[in-house]
């Protein structure tokens, strides 16, 4: 079996982000920022994906300029600029054992590797640099460090041609030392200095009394790079608070005092060489348990011309503004002021334009706008008012409040972390939906992902009858917006004028008493309406020219562009009109066709030309003909294409030439002929712009309904709407043509629409309604709807008949709902006195209307922290259609729900029951420990909307896995597999097997086989013998796998994922399987003998692949109707991928060769070897990486040709193959 791995939704979580001017472009909006300043972009590392985001001030959204998979774990990013340059470079620290410096090329929209310096082995090792990165603010040197021992300093310079040069590395190693944080000091043009928080462990390792460990001291060490001597020296090493974890550079030179902010647990210090320490305590949340510290996890510096400040975020989400009072080189005061509270981030960036980008560690990222810079009075702690008591420094307390200084203006969706996933078609739509349980704590959601683009509806109005077609037309080609919407019904035409409102008009000169076949703008400023009996040409001055059909003939089909019109008459006749210079529509040519015309289309007029040369005619004899429209060979055939079924609709799509740029790769101008065929296939072929020859045909099945094609405009480019059972959009995105479904029901007819309120929309008719909508988030695979949950979702199941979801949620270290309520009331009762700063009471809205502003939304602020051994949990029944929670049971007494399953017992008295496994008082450290485990059995009442407890059964360990088996319940209780039957008062033990190595985390059953997944030891295949009432293991895996997800594939095969980011397939060899099935004892005798301390048989790995992300859920499903089943996986970092099994050897050969060539010709950006990366833990086996193969589309054309030559194909054929296989998955 060979598999093809394809990421469907790229990682949505963020590991680190840096802001810089990577494109080096001047800002267009010079009014907003200082003139001459360049636009800022944010480089974001999302696991193994590197992205470049730009904030679009017009829409307020972030726009992904580039997203590239680097096939390596990105651990750190830094940006630097050479003195005098206008463009920033990006430094990437990854697990490749290499330092990579990238330059963004805005012309080609890609990252170019400027330097790649190898310094060590690959992988995340503790002594190989890559984890920490610091660059001198003047861009003269950079330091890359490992967690332990190694630090390497590279000198950056430029050569005569102004190219970046990099020196060989200078070592600043120190053995037995752990580095917590690294940064560079801003010391102007003096020698570059790097500072690190270091902790030495050599002594503690040797001292059995523990004294050395107690006295272990962190040091702040300064490393100076002497540029003259080309040497790094350890200049000074000063003891520092033992809670230090993060360093932030303080601006120096003319801008500030230089030096560092050292963030420690509970404190922030200012330090510099030869400067006394300035210390301030971080204000504490009033409700924080005493045992907890306050740690800064993210920091950003904002610099203006005359001042600077820092924003520091704590692990609870509170942001503090830190100011320094300085005089010359001395800092006299350090102030920490409460700023605002936003969800905890992994990185925050301040944009020059007054925005704050917050990359949340879990859940959606957000963009905030600064309203104030925190000048108002607020809770503040300062080094000047330090209170020292016997127990240490006394902190200032505060209560988080509603946002005051910043305003959330946009969110970027993130699925991180996906905890569980299920693919099912609960809404009876054409394609199944992906249900994902995402998020953590108070920001948990259940998200419903649908393949396709999201639409946002702007307007919907009902029409008097069922319309059949709609158009939107401008009055003049130079106008920005459309003037009329024309709706055609079966025998009337309705004209709506677009203004402040959309209303019916009768003075438009359009003929209203018949239905219309086409309405369009003709020439520069006249309108045309084609109706069955003629063509009505409405001139700008209101004159109407009417061309009538001869005799009793009627017009059946029309094709037109801006200057040309062709009609088909009922008598198999084709008449061609052209617009003359005078603005008159003149008949040019007539021709009898051999058969009825099914559809017509004229290509758009090429720029600077008078007419287009191509007319496409679709006939019922399953052919499409291209006819010439040139005067000398008018209506003469140029080429013929036969298709699989009669064409219903034709459209030419012109792709403008692109020479790269931000949105596109290089591609020449192209003309595509698209045809919607009667059998539901969309057929696309390339039309040679000179000869009209057709080549490179692609076809794709869109749905049983024949697709009808309509032109539209998407991001200023021509695009195509294909209306089949659901609408599809064909558009160019980052240089590639994409055909993506829209998440919307069937449409009858559609047209591009532009008005004041909606510049790039679509007007469509469906049923009896007129709808106007816009299409959003181009380039995305899924669109999502979110339903909020209370706690971190752990697992969920679908109630098959009712189509409800049962979700279990649990959180560690949080207060239960009642306690939270009580605490809130208590806080409200006491007002803001608790705040420790009485001035707060004068803050706006705290006294009056305080109810609202004080009721903190948990989503924003997170749940208050409780002692870490406390658990809260709930069981929820959710109706995904109405998004209502029909039942919510909050577990009491420190219990956490850990497993869930639906079960039908033999005894059918209660019907389907819900089993939930819980653990009470669960603790992980130092060893897993709990006071009791329970299995609850719930009965569904109120038609499945609600739950009623039948009974609960105590078990001795954590019941992490539950599964129905032959009318009984199988439970994995710790390391015991046990079979339960339903009793009156509790579950009754029937049989058990205690021979599992660690902890059972998954159980799947098929016929009489039971597939058990162990937390550390992979799969065990078991059988149950009814006559002897015995459970026994007949096969296990020889490889230790820390299982995080499992799925049953077939009788002999399981798919699993481990904690280290691998997916694998394990199969029991065929002969062994047969032997067991034929053996009358079912291999039991052999089992008693065992082999090498394990089961008598071994399952073998048949496929193995490193995803690079912890896979939390696996499911075998098909995402498209009629598509093959693939294995869908979701990961902690919020990505969704699929593994598709190849069904022919030829494809396997092709893709493995393509992969091989790409590995060679297009090595990954991070400097990691692709094969090595995919084999990080186990050698990759029989899985071809589609993500790498798809990079073929983005490599330069000559490399493409080179690879294609090696494969004996053309680049076009390869692209088609890639497209085909993608279409098999989604």
């Amino acid at each position, binding site marked *: 079996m060979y598999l093809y791995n394809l990421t469907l939704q790229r990682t949505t979580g963020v590991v680190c982000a840096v802001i810089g001017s990577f494109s080096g472009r001047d800002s267009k909006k010079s009014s907003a920022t200082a003139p001459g300043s360049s636009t800022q972009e944010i480089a974001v590392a999302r696991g193994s994906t590197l992205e470049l985001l730009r904030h679009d001030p017009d829409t307020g959204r972030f726009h992904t300029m580039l997203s590239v998979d680097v096939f390596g774990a990105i651990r750190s990013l830094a940006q630097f600029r050479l003195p005098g340059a206008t463009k920033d470079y990006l430094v990437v620290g990854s*697990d490749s054992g290499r330092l990579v410096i990238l330059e963004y090329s805005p012309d080609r929209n890609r990252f170019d590797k400027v330097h790649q310096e190898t310094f060590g082995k690959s992988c995340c090792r503790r002594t190989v640099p890559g984890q920490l990165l610091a660059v001198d603010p003047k861009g003269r040197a950079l330091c890359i460090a490992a967690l332990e021992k190694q630090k390497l300093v590279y000198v950056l310079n430029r050569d005569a041609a102004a190219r970046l040069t990099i020196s060989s590395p200078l070592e600043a190693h120190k053995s037995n030392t*752990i580095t917590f944080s690294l940064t560079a000091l801003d010391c102007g043009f003096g020698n570059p200095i790097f500072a690190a928080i270091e902790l030495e462990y050599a002594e503690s390792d040797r*001292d059995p009394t523990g004294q050395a460990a107690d006295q272990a001291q962190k040091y702040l060490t300064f490393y100076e790079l002497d540029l003259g001597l080309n040497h790094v020296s350890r200049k000074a090493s000063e003891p520092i608070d033992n809670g230090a974890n993060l360093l932030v550079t303080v601006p120096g030179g003319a801008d500030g005092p230089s030096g560092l902010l050292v963030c420690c647990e509970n404190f922030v210090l200012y330090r510099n060489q030869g400067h006394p320490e300035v210390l301030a305590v971080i204000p504490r949340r009033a409700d924080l348990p005493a045992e907890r510290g306050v740690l800064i996890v993210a920091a950003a510096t904002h610099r203006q011309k005359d001042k600077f400040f820092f924003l520091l975020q704590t692990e609870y989400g509170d942001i503090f503004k830190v100011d320094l009072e300085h005089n010359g080189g001395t800092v006299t005061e350090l102030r920490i002021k409460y700023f605002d509270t936003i969800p905890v981030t992994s990185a925050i960036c301040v944009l020059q334009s007054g925005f704050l980008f917050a990359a949340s*560690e879990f859940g959606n990222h957000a963009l905030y706008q600064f309203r104030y810079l925190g000048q108002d009075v607020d809770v503040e702690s300062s080094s000047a008012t330090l209170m020292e008591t016997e127990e240490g420094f006394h902190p200032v307390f505060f209560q988080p409040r509603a946002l005051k200084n910043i305003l959330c203006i946009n969110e970027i969706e993130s699925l991180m972390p996906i905890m569980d996933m299920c693919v099912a078609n609960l809404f009876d739509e054409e394609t199944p939906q992906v249900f994902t349980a995402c998020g953590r704590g108070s920001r948990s959601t259940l998200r419903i992902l649908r393949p396709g683009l999201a639409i946002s509806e702007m307007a919907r109005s009902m029409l008097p009858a069922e319309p059949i077609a709609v158009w939107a037309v401008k009055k003049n080609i130079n106008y920005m917006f459309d003037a009329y919407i024309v709706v055609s019904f079966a025998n009337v035409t309705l004209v709506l004028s677009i203004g402040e409102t959309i209303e019916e008009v009768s003075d438009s000169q359009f003929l209203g008493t018949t239905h219309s076949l086409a309405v369009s703008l003709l020439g520069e400023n006249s309108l045309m309406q084609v109706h069955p009996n003629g063509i009505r040409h409405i001139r700008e001055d209101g004159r109407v020219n009417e061309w009538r059909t001869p005799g009793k003939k009627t017009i059946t089909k029309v094709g037109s562009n801006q200057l040309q019109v062709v009609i088909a008459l009922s008598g198999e006749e084709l008449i061609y009109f052209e617009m003359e210079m005078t603005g008159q529509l003149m008949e040019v040519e007539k021709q009898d066709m051999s058969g009825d015309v099914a559809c017509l289309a004229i290509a758009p007029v090429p720029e600077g030309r008078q007419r287009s040369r191509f007319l496409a005619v679709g006939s019922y004899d399953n052919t499409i003909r291209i006819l010439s429209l040139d005067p000398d060979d008018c209506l003469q055939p140029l080429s013929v294409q036969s298709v699989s079924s009669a064409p219903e609709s034709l459209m030419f799509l012109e792709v403008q030439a692109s020479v790269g740029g931000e949105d596109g790769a290089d591609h020449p101008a192209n003309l595509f002929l698209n045809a919607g065929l009667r059998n539901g296939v969309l057929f696309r072929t390339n039309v040679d712009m000179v000869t009209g020859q057709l080549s490179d045909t692609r076809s794709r099945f869109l749905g049983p309904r024949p697709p009808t094609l309509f032109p539209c405009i998407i991001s200023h480019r021509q695009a195509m709407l294909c209306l089949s059972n659901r609408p599809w959009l064909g558009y160019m995105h980052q240089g590639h043509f994409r055909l993506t479904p829209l998440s919307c029901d069937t449409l009858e007819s559609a047209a591009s629409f532009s008005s004041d309120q909606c510049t790039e929309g679509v007007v469509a008719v469906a049923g009896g309604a007129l709808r106007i909508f816009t299409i959003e988030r181009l380039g995305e695979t899924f669109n999502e709807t979110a339903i909020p949950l209370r706690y971190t979702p752990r697992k969920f199941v679908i109630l098959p008949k009712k189509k409800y979801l049962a979700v279990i949620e649990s959180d560690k270290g949080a207060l239960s709902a009642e306690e939270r309520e009580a605490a809130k009331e208590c806080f409200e009762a006491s007002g803001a006195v608790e705040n420790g700063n009485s001035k707060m009471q004068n803050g706006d809205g705290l006294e009056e209307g305080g109810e609202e502003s004080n009721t903190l939304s948990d989503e924003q602020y997170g749940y208050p922290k409780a002692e870490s051994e406390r658990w809260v949990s709930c069981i929820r029944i959710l109706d995904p259609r109405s998004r209502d929670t029909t039942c919510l049971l909050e577990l009491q007494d420190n219990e956490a729900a850990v497993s869930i399953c639906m079960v039908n017992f033999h005894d059918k008295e209660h019907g389907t029951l819900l089993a939930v496994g819980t653990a009470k008082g669960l603790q992980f450290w130092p060893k897993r420990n709990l006071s009791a485990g329970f299995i609850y059995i719930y009965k569904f009442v109120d038609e499945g909307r609600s739950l009623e407890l039948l009974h609960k059964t105590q078990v001795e360990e954590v019941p992490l896995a539950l599964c129905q088996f032959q009318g009984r319940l199988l439970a994995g209780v710790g390391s015991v597999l046990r079979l339960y039957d339903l009793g009156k008062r509790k579950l009754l033990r029937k049989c058990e097997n205690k021979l599992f190595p660690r902890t059972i985390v998954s159980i799947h059953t098929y016929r009489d086989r039971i597939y058990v997944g162990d937390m550390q030891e992979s799969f065990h295949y078991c059988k149950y013998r009814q006559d002897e009432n015995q459970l026994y293991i007949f096969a296990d895996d020889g490889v230790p796998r820390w299982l995080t997800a499992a799925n049953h594939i077939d009788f002999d095969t399981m798919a699993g994922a481990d904690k280290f980011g691998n997916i694998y397939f394990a199969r029991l060899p065929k002969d062994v399987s047969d032997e067991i099935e034929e053996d009358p004892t079912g291999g039991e005798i052999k089992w008693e003998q065992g082999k090498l301390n394990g089961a008598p048989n071994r399952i073998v790995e048949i496929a193995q692949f490193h995803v690079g992300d*912890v896979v939390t859920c696996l499911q075998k499903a098909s995402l498209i109707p009629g598509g093959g089943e693939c294995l869908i996986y979701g990961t902690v970092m919020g990505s969704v991928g699929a593994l598709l099994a190849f069904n022919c050897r030829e494809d396997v050969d092709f893709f493995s060769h393509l992969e091989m060539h790409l590995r060679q010709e297009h090595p990954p950006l991070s400097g990691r070897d692709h094969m090595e990366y995919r084999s990080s833990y186990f050698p990759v086996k029989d899985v071809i990486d589609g993500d790498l193969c798809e990079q073929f589309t983005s490599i330069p054309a000559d490399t493409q040709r080179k690879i294609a030559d090696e494969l004996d194909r053309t680049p076009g054929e390869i692209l088609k193959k890639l497209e085909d296989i993608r279409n098999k998955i989604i």
Partner: protein
Amino acid sequence: MQASDRFNINSQLEHLQAKYVGTGHADLTRFEWAVNIQRDSYASYIGHSPMLAYFSIAENESIGRERYNFMQKMLLPCGLPPERDED
């Protein structure tokens, strides 16, 4: 040191041990071995961001806190070293 010594297996091992922290040797104690394994594991957890996220979900802590905790644990990952035998 003689030229021939440079190539014998012992000096090569010594070189490796100096260069790569955690390289084992014949006299490695169980404790030293465990400490190396633990430190390597923590470094790996910190380096692989999905793993760090996975832990922080389990512990319901922020990722930054989890990273800090792991770094702190690198100091004494296996508790105090055992008393050494005098000989």
